[in-house]
């Protein structure tokens, strides 16, 4: 049971990165369907940076650097994807859905290349990410659940809490939300809509990229053998599940993680029903979507101009 919860948390936190990033992006009015691709690229950049560092450093590996370098590379890769997305949708005014799906296809291709073609071995770096707090083992099941995780798990929670605070309690958050709700109003109030959309998308993608890194290095222990875009789609579903609130995402992501791996912990299920079990998160999301639509509480609806482009001249 403890192993199940620990596993659910570790998988859930990779979703949390993705959903926090996507929430920030969506709050600016960008429906970024490129998140799976962003996570793939994030993982690719981070893992490859780790591989390069470990190869270069040989024996004298600094554990802090072994963690920091991949994280920075991932943030950079994710932000770059966000920059491409923003450039296409804000500056060149492309359709957001098409742009997002293109990025997903691109990202999947990149990660396939990284797994198969570079010959890099990623499992070595994993131990730096999964290093647990030293006193975790002394506290029994409590320590296992709360302190046995690697650094990225805590980072995910911290980022979700900070995002939640920024969105609801600061002037920047207020301005960002107004851009996603009603860009014309934001523009009239003197807010630079394009800048907010660029920033939110780049930051959001950088955070989402960490999800990919976390999945490969932490959850898979570096045994990266298959493409990871599925977690990206779950992250997008999680955004809806948590009604665009990153702090709810912390709990939501653990629920998702638990649902996703539940099949492995229930004995005596066939392969087919295992796959059916994996659908649970999506079904739950649909139920939540129906539920929030019926209740029709405005605060729980997606940002009003989500997916819509904004040009000042058009009326």
């Amino acid at each position, binding site marked *: 049971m403890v192993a199940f919860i620990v596993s659910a948390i570790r998988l859930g936190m990779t979703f949390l990165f993705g959903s926090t990033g996507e929430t920030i992006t969506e709050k600016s009015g960008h429906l970024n369907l490129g998140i799976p691709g962003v996570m793939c690229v994030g993982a690719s950049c981070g893992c490859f940076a780790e591989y390069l560092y470990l190869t270069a450093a040989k024996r004298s590996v600094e554990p802090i650097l072994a963690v920091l370098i991949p994280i920075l590379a991932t943030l950079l890769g994710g932000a770059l994807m966000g920059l491409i997305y923003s450039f296409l949708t804000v500056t060149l005014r492309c359709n957001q859905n098409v742009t997002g799906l293109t990025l997903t296809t691109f990202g999947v291709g990149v990660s396939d290349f990284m797994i198969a073609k570079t010959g890099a071995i990623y499992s070595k770096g994993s131990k730096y990410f999964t290093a647990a707090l030293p006193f975790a083992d002394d506290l029994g099941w409590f320590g296992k659940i709360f302190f046995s995780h690697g650094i990225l798990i805590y980072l995910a929670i911290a980022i979700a809490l900070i995002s939640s605070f920024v969105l609801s309690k*600061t002037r920047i958050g*207020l*301005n960002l939300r107004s851009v996603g*709700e009603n860009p014309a*109003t*934001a523009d009239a109030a*003197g*807010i630079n809509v394009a800048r907010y959309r660029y920033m939110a998308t780049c930051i959001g993608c950088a955070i989402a990229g960490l999800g990919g890194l976390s999945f490969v290095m932490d959850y898979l222990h570096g045994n990266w053998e298959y493409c990871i875009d599925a977690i990206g789609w779950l992250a997008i579903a999680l955004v809806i599940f948590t009604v665009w609130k990153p702090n709810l995402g912390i709990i939501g992501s653990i629920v998702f993680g638990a649902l996703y791996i539940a099949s492995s912990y229930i004995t005596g299920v066939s392969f087919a029903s295992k796959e059916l079990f994996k659908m649970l998160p999506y079904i739950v999301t649909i139920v939540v979507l129906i539920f929030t639509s019926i209740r029709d509480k405005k*605060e729980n609806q997606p940002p*009003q101009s989500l997916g819509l482009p904004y040009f000042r001249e058009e009326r």
Partner: protein
Amino acid sequence: MDKTAAIELKNITKTFGSVVANKQVSLSVNRGEILSILGENGSGKTTLMNMISGIYFPDEGEIFINGEEAVIASPKDAFQYKIGMIHQHFKLVDVFSATENIVLGLEEKGRYNLKEAEQKVHAICEQYGFELDPHKKIYTMSVSEKQTVEIVKVLYRGADILILDEPTAVLTPIEIRKLFSVLRKMREDGKAIIIITHKLNEVMEISDRVSVLRKGEYIGTVNTAETDEAELTEMMVGKKISLNIHRSEPKNPTPRLEVHHINCSNREGVKMLDDVSFTAQAGEILGIAGIAGSGQRELLEAIAGLQKLDSGAVLYNNPQTGKMDNLCSKTPLQIRELGVRLSFVPEDRLGMGLVGNMDIVDNMMLRSYSKGKSMFLERKAPRDLAEHIIDELEVVTPNANTPVRRLSGGNVQKVLVGREIAAAPTVLMAAYPVRGLDINSSYTIYNLLNEQKENGVAVIFVGEDLDVLLELCDRILVIGSGHVTGVVDARTATKEEIGLLMTKTTVAEKGERS
């Protein structure tokens, strides 16, 4: 009260392409004064105000603020000069609270503190007598509350020159009274207030002085105390201009469409049509005059089956069967098959009538697609019709396969009206069919409508230019705020008469006078 000019405009001119929106306009507003700007639709009131608030930049002329020349190039500049504009369409974020909307976009120093902002909002409300709950979310607010948020927003930003663009258009009489008492308080506080309106009674009630615009030109400014509604109407509509539109005598008109006491409300529950009754006769053009948004659109849509009625009946005198059909119980398709055609030209021509990305032939087919016999589309007939319309109405287009969106406004209109007429209707309703068209295209449309009238069609023409209405129509129905305020004979009526009926907000007389 210190009476220095807070803002003064000198010889302001603004053109859009070849259209002159404002020509040599000069006016001034003092501190502690309310100035009304009066004018018909399209007289350039809003353009002028947009130049003060930094949305447009004047081509010629100067603006002085507190006696010093000012350059207002953007809304931010306007804000620096403490000018605040309350637009007709509110710019508010629905899911935010009142306070959040008020502080949105402000770059104040110090920590972001909603509590402090709320107190400041509260103080402003106290000072001027607003009733506003700072926590209330916009989407739960009434129109009047939203307007209050907009006004508090500009006051919060320290504006002392306030411009209100048709603030009373969306309010109920009680809300208007509340607004006016607030405006008076602001006047006492030394603010300069400009209010755009076309309701004469409100002008008389609230303003100290009135400036009148007509077709972009500045007519003059008078002190409210020294004028009356008749003089203002004359300044507003001007003298009659002869247009030489051909008009034949109606041939044995018979009632074709009878509208009986219809009522309808919009989504917000505001009454758009209030007990409207009239008869449209075959072989006659019935004009409908009124300030924009007085219920013209709802009226036509009600007849076409697009608008749900609260009560009342629309009776159609079917010339084939001789029976009366009630259109209210029919779908738009059934109504169309009876021969009622709506050619609607709202703000965007391509909204309800045509599909911009489809070519002329395909647009013809929108009316006839259901008539085909096989499962494939029949393109021959619509193609012939398209060619016919292009020839007959001199539509300027490379060929019949050009997407409608690429044609100019006048040609789009010709295609639309041509298609509606080709279906041989018995009732033709045209709303603003010449809006945005040049003189020649306009006359082509007038001739088309006249032709239909001579063929015994009941034509309903909603127009905004009173000169055209007076020369084209046989009778003119005037509506004001959803009421029928009068029906006049277009051959004998004067512009002033119609102008007064249009601005009348209470029902004084009903029934036909012709």
